[in-house]
């Protein structure tokens, strides 16, 4: 069970002066029960890719399939795919539209025909998972603070119980407890067999949590591999828009000076290694 992307090309406004090839032959596979991080410079095609995974955009060339169902017009493909794949947009305002938080989060499950008696539980569970309390159920989503909007947008996708979650910069605008809570939640969902596709600019997060990392560069999949492999590549060569995490650079400089420390992005691991190395 997986999302399979093969040779995906997306051209915006073909045949006009605005023609832009946003994706140019992207291939990768996101399996159920795994976490794929997608990173890349501003404008590299991440959000365009995200919208292909649940059929909001359709391929100009190449293909996307979800558990063997090809994403295309006709034969109810799009409805099936959208039930399987939930997309959390880059800006919550792109997603929110209901008058109250409760209605917003009920929309998905109601649309998929969840019976009314379980609907309330589903909605309350989803809101609980993102830390939105009952005091905000009747609030207008557009009058919430930025981080609260983000939480509601995530809950409104969770409430449908999709098999795959595509999240476009979901930690942007969250405070640190909110961010931890979300990442724990995603780890749990992964352990329960859901597939996580996580677009992020936070390299430490990608390196620390993902099973596989896809690096986009001007619409091409420039790197695809395990975090340790990707980190090695980042150290070897310049990748547009990306930087080596501070802590890895710090560890690198200490290594050059004779310290025996690993190239890690985990503070306690690095501190402990420095302590041991210094002790000798």
């Amino acid at each position, binding site marked *: 069970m997986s999302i399979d992307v093969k040779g995906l090309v997306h051209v*915006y*406004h073909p045949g006009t002066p*605005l023609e*832009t090839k946003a994706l140019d032959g992207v291939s990768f596979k996101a399996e159920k029960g795994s976490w794929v991080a997608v990173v*890349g*410079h*501003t*404008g590299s095609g991440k*959000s365009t890719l995200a919208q292909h995974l649940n059929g909001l955009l359709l391929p100009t060339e190449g293909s996307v399939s979800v558990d063997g169902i090809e994403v295309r017009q006709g034969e109810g493909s799009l409805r099936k795919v959208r039930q399987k794949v939930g997309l959390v947009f*880059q*800006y919550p*305002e792109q997603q929110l539209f209901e008058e109250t938080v409760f209605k917003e989060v009920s929309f998905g499950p109601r649309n998929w025909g969840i019976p009314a008696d379980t609907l309330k539980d589903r909605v309350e569970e989803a809101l609980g998972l993102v830390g939105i309390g009952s005091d905000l159920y009747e609030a207008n989503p557009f*009058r*919430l*603070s*930025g*981080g*609260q909007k983000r*939480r509601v947008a995530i809950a409104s996708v969770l409430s449908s119980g999709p098999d795959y979650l595509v999240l*476009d*910069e979901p930690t*942007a*605008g*969250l*405070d*640190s*407890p*909110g*961010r931890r809570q979300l990442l724990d939640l995603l780890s749990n969902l992964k352990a329960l067999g859901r597939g996580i596709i996580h677009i992020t*600019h936070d*390299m*430490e997060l990608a390196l620390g949590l993902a099973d596989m990392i896809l690096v986009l560069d001007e619409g091409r999949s420039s790197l695809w591999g395990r975090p340790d492999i990707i980190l090695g590549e980042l150290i070897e060569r310049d990748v*547009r*828009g*990306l*930087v080596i*995490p*501070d*802590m890895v*650079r*710090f560890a690198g*400089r*200490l290594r050059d*000076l004779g*310290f025996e420390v690993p190239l890690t*992005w985990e*503070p*306690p691991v*690095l*501190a*402990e290694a*420095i*302590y041991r190395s*210094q002790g000798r």
Partner: protein
Amino acid sequence: MTENCLVRFSGVSYTYPEAAAPAIADIDLKIASGEWIAVLGCNGSGKSTLAKHLNALLIPTQGDCFVNEFNTRGEDGKRSARRAVSMVFQNPENQIIAAVVEEDVAFGPENLGLSPEEIRARVSWALDVSGLGKMARKPVYALSGGQKQRLAVAGAIAQKPPCLVMDEATTMLDPRGRQDLMEVLSTLHSGGMTLVSITHRLEEILRCDRCIVLSGGRISWNGTPRELFLLGEELAMWGLEVPGMVKVWRELVQKGLLEAKIPPLMGEMVEALCR
């Protein structure tokens, strides 16, 4: 202090229409001209609400807010505040006005009544430092999320305002873009611009002069970034997390390998460890 005080909050509270509780309460705060101040705190702690008082988008429901010693309640005060302070919002969509990138950036300078040459020069400078140099003629709807955020920043700095407020305006930038923007802000700051940065990423406050922490709409703490990093449980209580490098620094200090007076910066730490 008063002569170079750009913004002064005196007992400011603000309650949104129909809201049960105030979003900010009893705020007393002075921002000196040329200062770089960070505003920190959890989601919903009142950061944006506080920021919107700086350019008179919100008027206190209690207390007074002064910009250049004009009360923002009066017409003079509103005008003064709007001229002195430019805001970059959390969501760039809320402030992009024109349909084409360069027209949007020109909007502010045009409103200032600058000459056409000066407008052109400002637009090209702002686009350049925001990394949008090649996109001047692009329609706004064809921009990616991060490009829109860059455009919002360009529009604000093109006005060369005395004070720039960045309300979580770097959330969608790639790491390189974020570094570049920090450089731009540093340069503007050296040139005398007052900066207010609202962020959840504490690595971005290293260069600030001072930070304040909001919790539940009140100012809980006020001090330098270095003092903040040395705090203990309070940080978790306010929902703040120090950057990875600072965590390593703290552990090394605790293990007695570094003296606490060494700052949590890479160069200084490497040097101290090699001694």
